[in-house]
């Protein structure tokens, strides 16, 4: 059966909604056993790090090798300052300035 683009988008939205809703139906307000709580935390954080990495360093399947070292340096500076000041925003401001300056100088 051939599906139209609109139907494909509708089905895609339904699957996204299912992944968002199902845990709320079954687990809202429940406390997980400590090991499961930790596993969920680790999976979520690892996925976020995957998003950070692919957003910052990749274009499709290829590494943006020209800008990757500068972005990596800005990311490290962001993390160091955020940790040191206990403020994600302070780190972000510094990282954004660094990455802009490095792109203007190149």
């Amino acid at each position, binding site marked *: 059966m051939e*599906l139209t*683009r*609109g*139907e*494909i*988008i*509708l089905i*895609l*939205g339904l*699957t*996204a909604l299912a*992944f*968002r*809703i*199902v*845990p*709320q*139906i*079954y687990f*809202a*307000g*429940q406390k997980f056993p400590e090991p499961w709580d*930790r*596993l*969920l*935390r*680790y*999976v*979520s*954080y*690892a*996925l*976020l*790090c*995957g*998003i*950070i*990495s*692919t*957003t*910052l360093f*990749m274009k*499709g*399947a290829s*590494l943006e090798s020209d*800008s990757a070292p500068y972005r990596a340096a800005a990311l490290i500076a*962001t*993390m160091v300052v*955020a*940790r040191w000041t206990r*403020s*994600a*925003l302070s*780190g972000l401001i510094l*990282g*954004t300035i660094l*990455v*802009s300056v*490095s*792109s203007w100088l190149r």
Partner: protein
Amino acid sequence: MAFAQRFRQGMKAAIPVWVAFVPSSIAWGIAAQSHQLTLEEVFLMSAWVYSGPAQFAVLGPLTEGKSALQVLAAGTLMNLRFLPMSTALAPFFKGVKRLPLLLSSHVISASSFIVPYLQFQKERESEALTAGDESTRGYDNLAFFLGVGVTAFTVWVAGTMLGFSVALGFPPGFEEALKFILPGYFAGLLVVEMKGWMMPLICAVSLIAAIPGASASPGWGWLVVSCVVAFVGWGLEEWNLRAARSS
């Protein structure tokens, strides 16, 4: 705390997310226009699917006439990440009625997960010290979550429509900064809350290993690699803990 006050608190925490969403949503709108999606399809995709990485991943296959199964498989794999994120948020919504909870869950995204999740964890720890009652916090937490989620969702949808309608370009020289904001903010939030040694290790390995993963398959390679890293790290920690208990 009043619902509106807590919602505003969430909005305030979401400001960097809005700033980051503006360029990426406009970029997606422009890409969708260049791939000849209609205005209705663009709106449907942004408001109904609401998943940046999946939207970018399926744009090509969707408009190049690839099979529906291929498009759905790519998008669904990308959207799988919502499952652990939504599960991790669920315990913080204790006492919230089902309908508002189900409606609210539509705005779960990576940003509307991490900002509230870290905030709730911080609050749970400080409440544990002051013997607070977690059962009364469900609606408070929902208000904060909505402050982040609804506003970020609005910015995303509006941005894609704007990008579609006007082929807007940012002044040259600012693309790097705009590209950096969202991942930089995520990294800053994570690093502030890091404890112990396993979490930083998992984050560092996942950050590096996602690159070959994405090279192997840009759609879902990084996703599989990140999950494997988390499971291996967790397994090692569990094994260590059990060994320590039995000795």
